[in-house]
């Protein structure tokens, strides 16, 4: 059509370039020094792929395509720029769900065509069905995860026989999918049923999962969306989708395992045990009492300490206290105090969530240590300052076999000479488990909102002079 210009070859060659750019970009993102350029590489790959797809042979509906891209991009751009750093986890969940939905939409279009007589081969239609189910589950599941993290859904839905019900939904989706793929009953009704069952399954699977497990769930849905994209890539014979989707699928699976392992739990356990909201009554009784302390005393204690280890948790994110915390630490560093941040792998709502917040506040990352690096150092620390962290410093995980978190590696904050806990009230943590750390003889409680308490500490340290 355009002389010697072979559109199909140009498209395929550009997809190849895109795949290379994606892999190089992800590789660069895996090191702090090159991370920033990594997203630019991957972004360039996405632009190339999107533009060149307009040359794809045999396409129509260009005005619809352009309209959808413009609307989707503008909405996502606006929301992505506007969201606060503390709300990142739910935004990632939301964008991830969109990807799953898009993969499901591709499957739906292909399967409706298949049902209308434009039949695909068995392999292709099976892959379209599987990718469609995974994508739809990821779509509705991620939306529920988003709503839960954003506080739009606070209740957890649980009823007897829930697992059985979920299993029925999965079987329903698979049976409908089998009917369509095998051409036993490839009517549009059955195509619709596949997606109806799969969407319900995503909702039913995610509703009972507690907030504490959301990091693992988001990571899992991220991997699932990657897999769905890869399957739809097979359906469309699109190498860029196969490669990008598979890379994300395997990388996401590994990341999910790393996170689950950090909590000493299996992925199956996260999905089916309903931890994270239950367990309030579990665990032995804790003896002793919580002993309060005033900010001025803590200020003096830290100002004259040699070493202070700060343990941030989700409470710091909620209170947006990261800037104040760093301001306080700078005061201490100027006085010659050694300050370090100890980050538990599952602190916050995503792996590295705390790192992002501390980076936002400007904390240099040589001060930030993870669990293995820092745990031996607590014994030499004068003060362990816990800001909004709870389960990740609960010594019950080491000792009490009846506790739901038994066996989870924790930060040994209780080994420090003094433990100061900044906490809003006396209630139990996110998981509902009583924290034995709060009742130790060397622990003092500084009650208050993370931001206000830290501001009081800054004033106290300045007053020391």
């Amino acid at each position, binding site marked *: 059509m355009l002389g010697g210009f072979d559109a199909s070859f140009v498209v395929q060659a550009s997809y190849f370039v895109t795949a290379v750019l994606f892999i190089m970009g992800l590789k660069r993102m895996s090191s702090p020094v090159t991370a920033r350029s990594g997203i630019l590489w991957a972004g360039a790959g996405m632009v190339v792929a999107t533009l060149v797809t307009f040359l794809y042979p045999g396409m129509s509906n260009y005005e619809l395509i352009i309209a*959808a891209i413009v609307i*989707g991009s503008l909405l996502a751009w606006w929301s*992505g720029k506007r969201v606060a750093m503390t709300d990142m986890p739910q935004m990632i969940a939301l964008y991830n769900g969109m990807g799953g939905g898009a*993969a499901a939409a591709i499957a739906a279009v292909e399967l409706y065509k298949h049902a209308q007589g434009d039949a695909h081969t068995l392999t292709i239609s099976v892959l379209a069905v599987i990718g469609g189910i995974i994508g739809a589950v990821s779509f509705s599941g991620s939306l529920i995860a988003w709503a839960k993290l954003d506080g739009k859904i606070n209740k957890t839905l649980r009823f007897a026989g829930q697992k059985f019900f979920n299993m029925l939904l999965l079987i329903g989706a698979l049976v409908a999918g089998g009917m369509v793929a095998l051409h036993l009953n490839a009517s549009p009704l059955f195509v619709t049923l596949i997606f109806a069952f799969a969407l319900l399954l995503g909702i039913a699977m995610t509703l009972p999962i507690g907030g504490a497990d959301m990091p693992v769930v988001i990571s899992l849905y991220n991997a699932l969306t990657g897999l769905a994209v890869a399957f739809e890539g097979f359906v469309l014979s699109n190498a860029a989708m196969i490669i990008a989707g598979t890379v994300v*699928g395997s990388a996401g699976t590994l990341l999910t395992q790393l996170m689950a392992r950090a909590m000493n739990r299996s992925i199956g356990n996260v999905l089916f045990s309903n931890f994270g909201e239950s367990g309030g009554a579990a665990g032995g009784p804790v003896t002793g009492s919580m002993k309060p302390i005033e900010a001025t005393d803590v200020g003096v204690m830290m100002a004259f300490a040699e070493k202070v280890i700060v343990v941030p948790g989700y409470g710091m994110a909620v209170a947006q206290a990261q800037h104040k915390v760093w301001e306080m630490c700078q005061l201490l560093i100027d006085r010659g105090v050694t300050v370090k941040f100890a980050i538990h792998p599952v602190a916050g709502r995503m792996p*590295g969530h705390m790192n992002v917040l501390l980076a936002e506040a400007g904390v240099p990352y040589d001060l930030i240590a993870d669990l293995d690096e820092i745990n031996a150092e607590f014994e030499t620390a004068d003060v362990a300052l816990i800001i909004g962290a709870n389960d990740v410093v609960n010594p019950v995980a080491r000792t009490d076999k009846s506790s739901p978190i038994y066996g989870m590696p924790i930060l040994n904050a209780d080994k420090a000479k003094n433990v100061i806990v900044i906490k809003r009230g006396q209630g139990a943590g996110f998981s509902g488990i009583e924290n034995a750390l709060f009742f130790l003889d060397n622990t003092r409680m500084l009650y208050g909102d993370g931001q206000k308490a830290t501001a009081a500490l800054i004033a106290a340290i300045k007053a020391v002079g």
Partner: protein
Amino acid sequence: MTGIVALYIFMLAAFTGYEIIARVPVILHTPLMSGSNFVHGIVLVGAMVALGNADTTLEKVIGFTGVLLGAGNAVGGYVVTERMLEMFRSSGAKAKQKGSH
């Protein structure tokens, strides 16, 4: 693309993804999850093809939704990843300054 070639691509890409994550520091887990979230935004391309080949109104509506969602995944994923990594750069630069004097 023949099935067996597609299978090879699948296998090699799976190892690639595994290798990329295997040696990554915890500090970058969230940006990398966000970055991989952006990368599967390539689904946009597939959705464009699906919409481009849609005939009936139903197919067009679903295809349109797919492109809309795919574009949201790609652009949103890019924006949040870029914002996160931007912070790492500034903190890295600060760390270097601190080390140099």
